[in-house]
């Protein structure tokens, strides 16, 4: 009765798989995480991509990313992927800016510059 072949089942398609106890911890979201959340909302509202694109890029990141990156780390990776695909900015521009950001200082507070 049950389908014994798992060929083609993707890692994120988790329903029914064995798993242990549910870790019940919660954390309050840091400002940078809320910024990521806001960027997603805005990018989608402006039509650059949809939540489907967000999910697709998250899925394509693979299981390792799920295990080693936090939720919003994966989200900013996916948003960036989608925005590059949408032509919002180029890799060249992103490279330059990420270098500049790192040069501002070693903490988030310093690196965010004017922040606002």
């Amino acid at each position: 009765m049950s389908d014994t072949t798992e060929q083609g089942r993707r890692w994120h398609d988790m329903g029914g798989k064995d798993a242990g106890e549910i870790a019940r911890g919660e954390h309050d979201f840091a400002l940078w995480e809320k910024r990521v959340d806001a960027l997603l909302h805005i990018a989608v509202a402006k039509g650059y991509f949809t939540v489907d694109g967000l999910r697709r890029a998250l899925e394509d990141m693979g299981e390792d990313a799920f295990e080693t990156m936090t939720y919003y780390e994966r989200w900013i990776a996916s948003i960036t992927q989608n925005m590059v695909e949408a032509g919002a900015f180029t890799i060249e521009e992103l490279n330059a800016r990420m270098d500049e950001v790192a040069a501002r200082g070693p903490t988030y507070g310093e690196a965010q510059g004017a922040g606002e």
Partner: protein
Amino acid sequence: MPHDHHDHFHHEGMSPSGHPFQPDNDHPLTYWQRMEIAVRELLVEKGITTAAAINAQIEKMDARTPALGAAVVARAWGDPAFKARLLADGSAAMEEMGIDPDGLKLVVVENTDEVHNVVVCTLCSCYPRNLLGLPPDWYKTRAYRSRTVREPRAVLGEFGLELAEDVRVQVHDSTADMRYLVLPRRPDGTEGWDAEALAAIVTRDCMIGVAVPQMP
């Protein structure tokens, strides 16, 4: 704070959950934070958005908390006609109460003496964010996503909820565009309570379906 001479968005005081906000400004910059800053600045420079719009969206999301959902539940408990409208079209009913769905397609499922509902998203972490705020970390875990559709009673047991054998557990996997809110059963002994008192016993976990309202 180092940047007081700018009009600077920063968290004030305590977060809605009663914890102090994380002091991320002092933490070592991570690769992904570096990316967030760079992407945000590029989008502002290219005129795709503004700092003000980003801050406004953060504030908008901060304002969405389980208290909104609790208010909807409390109203449904006291007003059968509203409850019927809520079950027929959750988003329209939200709007009646002045809560902007902003694209949320809300479906409300009702707990009864016979049926207990619980919501999950096995494929990612879909959640009625525009009503309840951001989902808790546990909702996004592998264990919750994997096990809730297969052994809901064991999962509910971990949350401290035991159900009678003759109650049917109804699991909702949010696979498409709809988002689900559980309308808990109104506890006995709450007759005559006002909306505020009713809302106070409706927790986020009750509206996900891993808990039921507790009498104070």
